[in-house]
């Protein structure tokens, strides 16, 4: 099914699905940032780079979902 054939209620369902995933990813990023800051201030620098990579991966997923949303609106 092409985007133009999707009804608004279908698009609303899609946007709810995307929103749910984005919320989960953002909460995960918030937890990552808090845990990393705590570890960093405690002198543990080993987790800093893996946590940053995980956060960037979450951002990439979110950006991909946003892109899908923009395409959906066209």
């Amino acid at each position, binding site marked *: 099914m092409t985007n133009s054939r999707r009804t608004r209620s279908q698009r609303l369902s899609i*946007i709810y699905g995307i929103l749910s995933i984005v919320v989960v990813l953002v909460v995960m990023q918030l937890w990552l940032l808090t845990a990393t800051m705590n570890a960093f201030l405690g002198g543990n620098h080993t987790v800093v780079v893996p946590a*940053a990579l995980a956060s960037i991966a979450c951002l990439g997923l979110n950006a991909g979902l946003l892109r899908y949303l923009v395409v959906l609106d066209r």
Partner: protein
Amino acid sequence: MNGKDLQAPAFPDGRLERDQPKWRRDFPIDVEADEYGARRDFTKFLVLTSLAFACGQIWIVFLSLFRGRQPAEQRIAAITDLEIGEAVSFHYPTDRDPCLLIRQSDDVFLAYSSQCTHLMCPVRPDLAHNRLHCPCHEGYFDATTGQPTAGPPRRPLPRIHLRIDRGIVYATDVEERAS
């Protein structure tokens, strides 16, 4: 815009427009369209928040690159400058890092960062009770270990490694500790 979008606006109670009260017919808000726009904008805002969190993580990576370096050794005081049970403040490794040097006995010298691990308020020595006191939120640290004993702080005070050479106390390193 497709055919569905051109239909009459959907009302919250699902009834037709002619069955709606007058105030709603005067202001026929399409609830479904409004909901769609609001959720879409909220998703965009959340992605922006996600970008901010990722920037925060990258900022921590940069901080860790600079903090990983071993600070240079620095003279603090002569042994004779401190009586037993006294404390003196100094700055290490930079001028923006206040610390405390404590003399517990003849040959026991301890040094900690004097910034409370809760909200960075300066801690004050209360050596009569063998503790360090943060007056901002009533936090207490054990003077012998630097561990928090009461109040909001959860992490111990960073410990300053010392070296004593020919009656002079030198700071050699900072040990940040986790709770």
